[in-house]
């Protein structure tokens, strides 16, 4: 299992760049994880990352894109509440890449 060094400690990370223990994640990690994929985080990313983390605690999975769209619209206005906008924020796909930055496992199966 590859190790990811962060603030003098090492964390398990799979070959695909996902942290293995979602509870080991802390906010400071997100910008570092995003940087590895060439994404710079701003308020809009953070809104979703925090929403994802809150949702995951309750439901053990990240919310589907429909809910992310709704959350965006709620926080930043209806013109930002669409799938295309989410893909601009997370070019690797909101479902997968947002999870990666939020330290959550990627969804599996027919998705």
């Amino acid at each position, binding site marked *: 299992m590859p190790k990811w060094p962060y603030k003098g400690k090492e964390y398990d990370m*799979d*070959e695909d760049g996902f942290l293995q223990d979602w509870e080991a994640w802390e906010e400071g990690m997100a910008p570092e994880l995003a940087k590895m994929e060439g994404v710079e985080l701003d308020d809009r990313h953070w809104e979703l990352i925090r929403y994802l983390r809150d949702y995951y605690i309750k*439901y053990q*999975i990240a919310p*589907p894109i429909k809910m992310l769209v709704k959350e965006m619209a709620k926080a930043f206005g209806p013109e930002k509440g669409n799938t295309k906008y989410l893909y601009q924020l997370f070019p690797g796909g909101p*479902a997968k890449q947002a999870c990666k930055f939020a330290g959550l496992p990627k*969804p*599996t*199966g*027919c998705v």
Partner: protein
Amino acid sequence: MAEVEKKEEREVPYYETVLGASPEKLATVDYKPPAKPWMDVPPKFKKLDYLNPAKVKWMKVIDLPFPREWSPPDEDWKLPENWKEIFLNGMEDRLKRFRSFQLFMDICVRCGACADKCQFFIGGGDPKNMPVLRAELLRSIYRRYFTTSGKILGKIAGARELTVDVIKELFKYSFQCTECRRCSVFCPYGIDMAEITMIARELLLLLGMHVNWAIEPVGKSFLTGNHMGLLPHTIKDFMDEYRDELEKITGFKVDVPMNRKGAEILYIVPSGDFFDERGVILTIATLLYFYHIGLDYTWSTYTSEGGNFGLFTSHEMIKRLNAKMYAEAKRLKVKWILGGECGHMWRVINQYMGTVNGPADFLEEPVSPITGTKFENAKDTKMVHIAEFTADLIRHGKLKLDPSRNDHVIATYHDSCNPSRAMGLFEEPRYIIKNVCNNFYEMPESCIREKTFCCGGGAGLGTDEQLETLLRGNFPRSNATKHVHEKFGVNRLLCMCAIDRAVLSMGLSYWCPQVTVGGVHELLANALVIPGESPRTVDLRRQPLKRPITPGKIAGKEA
């Protein structure tokens, strides 16, 4: 100004950035085989070209042997000490148990009819992705250890020693086969390549080797009933959201029956339909459709998965994961089961379920509650495909449809591998599409119906962990889509499989981003003329319609 720049930056498709190769470059395939004979070319593993190995955690959840941490590019795969013995014993056992396997090891005459039929060979040019050679990887071992000629003559008889490199090679090419069975259509002997790949994967699994994209879903399915690991309250939360979305778009507030005992019909979908972008639209469409026809049905949070990644793992795992379908049907006391737009679910149902977990005598032979049509084809499994069910309704004039409500869509249809090749479902989806959409164009005859290409992501390959392999395997289908896009302006690729919906979207975002992907019943629901409907200007995706919907009117005229 800054915003404009940002936008331009993102015009390059994401996968092109990751891969560092443009579609033009990736489509230039070198078909020249290596100079050395195939047995002398060892397998190589480079980044974005292989799937990650199964994680220890998920191996343990389903009691698989030798869970360990390893990686394909590693020199040492940490094989168990007696790996050779385990592998050959496993092979002997399967030769005895599966006559098909014995037959497929014996009868190939290397005519080459299959050689250029695999999408991974077409898009990648690696000769070991010619089905004949992929099978030969295992056949050469069969000859060496299980035939007299191979034992005596060795290489001359096409036999070779079982070495660690052979194991690595089997791993590589077993996971560059989507078990789609396109090659088998062209084989004069009808050799089923999927069955050979399945056995090869079983043998690898005996040594503790498989891919995480298959094993994690199997583990989650075992724990929660579905590949995604969705818990009952999560599914409920998702479905409430979709119900609300449907109400916002159409004004209809529908019921979402969950785990309802005594319903006439149990409805089973792939779990992607609870989560995946395109699948979710299909779910919203289905909610509207079933509400409209007043179907007495229920969703289930236990049988919350139509797919069965056991099919990609082992015969035992097929049975283990499939069992929940009949168990839930029994518990809820339904009469029969309706299945959604799922892919390999239908292969398991039609080719395995009846014998591994049947007979389901406690269920009734399916009869449409609306038309009275008896689905005699489902007498054994008690399970009807939603396209059969819908086509029957349309045929009997039970649905009022306005195809002009889909005039913003110019559609083509991708026959999903398993509904087409494992159940022969060619006409029903086309019949539905032609009734709900005015613009429908077929892709070339050589790549539709039973000759359909795979999306490139079936059988546990549908992840961008192996982005290059995925895009290469996807190329033939996306290329044919691009053809009808350029010729007829096609902007929607319809299909009936959750892996398709996810993987074709990934592939097209790279090869032909002008085309989106969706399910057949999404268009059906768009076209439904429903009493009490409200005026609206968008479809179920919230995409603008060509002409706003005026209640009760068909194509702008009085209905």
